[in-house]
């Protein structure tokens, strides 16, 4: 939130000024319409200027902000019906990952995503979107069900990373992520992954072995957090902004690296300014990809996913 306000500060100042002019004009009955018009144009330019030139670190902040729409928000907007399913059938229902079956334009799909909270209380329940092994195992169970019933899979990626803790290690955080990478590669249904906020390392990738990878414009995806990198490089976590600059973690960077297939535009100010619009963009993208993959056989779908990752880095 703080950073959001920081980014928006000049915008808010200008907006206030326009409001003052309008008020003044009304109260004093002076015609300021020309001035207001100029200021409004200036405002639009300022917004565009700021949001098209966000620094990587500003994007990091935006991608993490509390008011950024979450997996649940997008599910609500893109599905005409959705049933959340729970549990890994082994140990727990991990609430930092949600998943279930739904209908998008009448097409049955399985949707799985990291789930952050918007309040402190909800974030505690959701473990700030940081899964334990049981979260990944729930995801895998639901993906295998999708595979069985020939339902395309959509994953929403939004996590600071897999949780670091004793229980997570005891129950095989590494194994759980690795298993998902292996099993996702042989799914016979198309997997469409969309980074909607923070794509944090292996904990993100464990839902991201996909046929198509999209990113919301201001989301990020990286192997380590900027704080982590900066403390390794400079023994100083406060240089995160500098770290972000060299990390190539924005949607644009990943698109240029040929890792991301599609950047989904956000409204000026970020996705939270118009969830409906962003959801509409997501929905259109997902449907168009599902339609494309309908033409492919199971083997071709597997091969398509294989080739996407096989070529990365070489």
């Amino acid at each position, binding site marked *: 939130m703080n950073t959001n306000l920081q980014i928006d500060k000049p915008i808010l100042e200008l907006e206030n000024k326009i409001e003052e002019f309008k008020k003044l004009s009304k109260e004093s009955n002076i015609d300021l319409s020309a001035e207001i018009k100029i200021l409004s144009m200036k405002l639009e330019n300022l917004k565009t200027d700021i949001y098209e030139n966000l620094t990587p670190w500003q994007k990091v902040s935006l991608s993490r902000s509390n008011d950024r729409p979450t997996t649940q928000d997008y599910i609500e907007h893109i599905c005409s019906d959705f049933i959340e399913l729970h549990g890994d059938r082994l140990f727990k229902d991990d609430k930092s990952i949600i998943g279930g079956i739904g209908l998008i334009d009448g097409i049955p799909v399985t949707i799985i995503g990291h789930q952050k909270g918007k309040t402190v209380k909800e974030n505690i329940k959701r473990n700030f979107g940081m899964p334990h092994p049981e979260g990944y195992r729930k995801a895998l169970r639901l993906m295998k069900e999708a595979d069985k019933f020939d339902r395309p899979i959509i994953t929403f990626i939004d996590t600071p990373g*897999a949780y*670091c*803790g*004793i229980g*997570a*290690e*005891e*129950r*095989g*955080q*590494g*194994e759980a*992520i*690795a*298993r998902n*990478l*292996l*099993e996702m*590669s*042989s799914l016979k249904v198309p997997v469409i992954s969309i980074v909607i906020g923070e794509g944090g*390392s*292996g904990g993100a*990738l*464990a839902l*991201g*072995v996909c046929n198509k990878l999209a990113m919301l414009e201001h989301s990020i*995806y*990286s*192997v*380590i957090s900027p704080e982590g*990198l900066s403390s*390794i490089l400079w023994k100083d976590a406060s240089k995160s902004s500098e770290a972000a600059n*060299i*990390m*190539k*973690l924005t949607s644009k*960077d*990943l698109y240029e*690296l040929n*890792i991301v297939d599609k950047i989904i535009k956000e409204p000026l100010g970020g996705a939270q300014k118009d969830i409906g619009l962003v959801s509409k963009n997501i929905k259109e993208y997902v449907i168009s990809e599902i339609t494309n993959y309908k033409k492919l056989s199971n083997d071709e779908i597997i091969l398509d*996913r*294989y080739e996407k*990752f*096989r070529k*990365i*880095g*070489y």
Partner: protein
Amino acid sequence: MIKKLLNKNKEYASVSVSTNFSSKNLDEKFWIVCPDCNKDIFKKDVEENLNVCPKCNYHFKMPARERISLLIDEATFVELDAKLSARNILDFPQYDEKLNSYIDKTKENEAVITGTGKLNGIDVVICVMNSDFMMGSMGATVGEKITRAIEYSLENKFPLIIISSSGGARMQEGIVSLMQMAKTSQELSRLAKNSIPYISILTDPTTGGVTASFAMLGDIIIAEPKALIGFAGPRVIQQTIKQNLPEGFQRSEFLLEQGFVDIIVSRQDMKNTLYRIFKMHNY
């Protein structure tokens, strides 16, 4: 035979001793202190014992080439992709310099050595990660070399051995390095579908993106005694949870207990154990 090889490759053995052993006094050229049993041991005794403490079986690090000598029949090893070396894909500051210094220091081009050879006469593919090279971190080239080795295994139907020791993904290659986890794992999925056995050997330390990909995907997972194996490193966990970690946490024996390792095998028994396993897989 092993002893002979160790003597031949004395250069490696001494590299490992000087970098990994802590010294207690001025006699450090001859004596070292075992970090596990805290006893003084004669350096040469350790070196002649496959870098294993003769008093407590503590496994010191073993240089990658020595591991190949340990497991692969003499003069049968053929290296694959030896020339492949990392590139600075992201123009990451100082990465080139860092790479060059490691290449100079280790005389290796990357953090993994891959190849094919015979194990008691059985054709195998073997990958050995090299923790002396940038902490055995996995970037695009490490991922590519391992992927190609798996492909080689697939094409020739040779069983696969990967000996891991790694700090995880190579941060200097950013997202590209992260994606190597998927790349190597999906190649293993092809191997699995073709029922070619893959034995994963975990050595000290195996963490991060390597643990969270191929290292944990062996048909059989073997660990060397007391190796550190985990997803998050112990220091990171400690910083996160702000409490001390239990004794033995994230060591091989702990992973065996928790159900993530099949067997713990001492270095001395490794080759024979692999041989027995392959025999039980009809090789």
